[in-house]
């Protein structure tokens, strides 16, 4: 079972992710801030991170850079309300980019695609 870390500052969105992605068979851990995410990454091992770009007073992009630097090979999917970052070179470090939507199929597909690429079994 792949283990996912969800990082989003909105409690309801974390709840929705946890619900939907658990139903898909993933083990889901959530974090509400970059600090909490780093702590959880240090305390446990994960197969993939789903990361929001705008966190309260923090930047998801900075956290992305830190993950890429410290945990080389851990895939990250940016899931954000903004479509404009898709072409921003700072977002190119991520393995996937999904615009937030009430239909989470695109995110689920993207998680599957990235995990398959990294050859991690669900």
């Amino acid at each position, binding site marked *: 079972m792949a283990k996912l870390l969800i990082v989003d500052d909105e409690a309801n969105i974390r709840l*929705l992710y946890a619900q939907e992605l658990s139903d898909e068979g993933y083990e889901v851990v959530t974090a509400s801030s970059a600090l909490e995410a780093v702590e959880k990454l240090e305390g446990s091992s994960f197969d993939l991170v789903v990361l929001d770009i705008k966190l309260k007073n923090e930047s998801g992009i900075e956290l992305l850079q830190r993950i890429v630097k410290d945990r080389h090979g851990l895939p990250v999917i940016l899931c954000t*309300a903004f479509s404009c970052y898709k072409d921003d070179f700072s977002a190119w470090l991520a393995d996937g980019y999904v615009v937030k939507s009430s239909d989470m199929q695109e995110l689920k597909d993207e998680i599957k695609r990235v995990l398959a690429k990294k050859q991690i079994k669900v």
Partner: protein
Amino acid sequence: MDWECCWSRDEIAPEECPYIGEGEEDLYGSQRRRVVEKCIECPRFKNDLTRLKGAGDPLADVLPFILTEYLEQKAQMGSMLGFLNSRTSEIKFLREVSLVLQTSIDLDEVLSIAMTAITAGKGFGMNRALLLMTDKERRNIRGYLGVGPKDYEEAWRTWDDIGRRNFTLKELAKNFQKTGLNSEKEKFHDILGQLTVPLADHGHIFNRALHGKKPILVENALNNPDLDRGLARILGVDCFLVMPLISRNRRIGVIIADNCITHKPITLQDMQSLETFAFPVAFALERASLYERLQEEVAKQKAANLKLREQQELIAKMEKMALVGKITSSIAHSIRNPLMVIGGFARTLLKGSAENDEKRSYLESIVRETRQLEDVLSEVLDYSESLFPVMDFWDLNELITTSLVDLAGTLEQSGTICLSELSPELPMVRIDYKQISYCLKTIISTALASMEQGGELRVESLLDGDGVLLRISDSGNSLSEKAQEALTAPFFQTQEMGAGVGLSLCKTILERQGNSLSIVGRAGGGNVYSIRLLTRKENL
């Protein structure tokens, strides 16, 4: 004694002296002037002197010495006067030419005056003049302009024409600048082309003249051991003058002048006159060349200023973009997140609800409406982005290929066969890549919507005059005129197209950049969407 000549009388009658002509009547009453101007050379006066000698007058032996000396002095004075007159008219001519040269900053005008002055009969009257100038890199001296007839026939025609029109030198120069400058350049093109000499070739006669700052008169050129015979052969004359043009120690060029038609010898005086003339010409040529270079620099400066202004406008635009970006970001964040939560949980609840649960339809409504709100939000945000295109030159075929790869999954799901025919020789198009990619994807989505049962989608790129055409054809139901109207009105709703700003946004984006979008519903079914893109930089 009875004298044959009238020298002894105060006043004479007209029939008494046959040497007084018309207009000299006042000499009849002036003995002094008559004796000096007429009697002194009169044969009758000489007879009277012989008679005086015969009479034993001692003055008769002395007077011939005085007379001979006087006549010699008179001839000398006459010659000096002629010389002074010629110099005066030359100075007058030089002054006139110099004045014009001093006030002219147009290189063509300076050249026309200089070359006309050398070759016109009213100027120095040389048959031909060739101007060679130092190139910008100051490495070579090159043939620049030639003036004069090439053969007898042309010489006769030109001189006859000039003689009949009686132009002043200034008029001749003006006329030459207007009609002759380019044709003369062309006429002497072959000779001028052979006259390039490196400035480092110190032994060459051009450089010798420049170095010595003195004109060199070449005579017997074909047999002159100090001279390259090739030059004489190129010029086709045995005698020519090489005049250096130097201004403030700068080597401007040389003028070669000759009498290739009349073969009249070039005199020392011709050489001196041309030497005097060479100074203002060199100065004027240098000034006109500098002015021309200055103009080039001014043009470059203007272009740089324009570019700077464009950059400033771009910065202002980017500042606006940043503001719009902030606003749209804020909207995106504060609307999209709650929508996701509402719609997402509604979907979760819907998944877990029983098929016969009556609340299911409420949940379905929430899911549907949320989805629609999300679509509208996306389009509004896309529209905001479209206000500030980032224009650059792109390969349209690469854009089409990438977009089709992005849409591969959607095309496969819809059961549509997609064919692309891309012309391999398209020029680059100046577009905002993201926006045109958005337009193409939106049109393909619209086309797919009109082919519910699948069908054939054709994407073509082809050259169209000064632009490039991107054509998308579907095999779906032909759109009605009403549906086509939807193009121009955002949120216009039709059964075929649904509501939204998609195609209308595409049209707005394309037209704002000087491009166009048209839709034609084919009678036999299917629609053709044509995007015409400009390849020039002039589009917005």
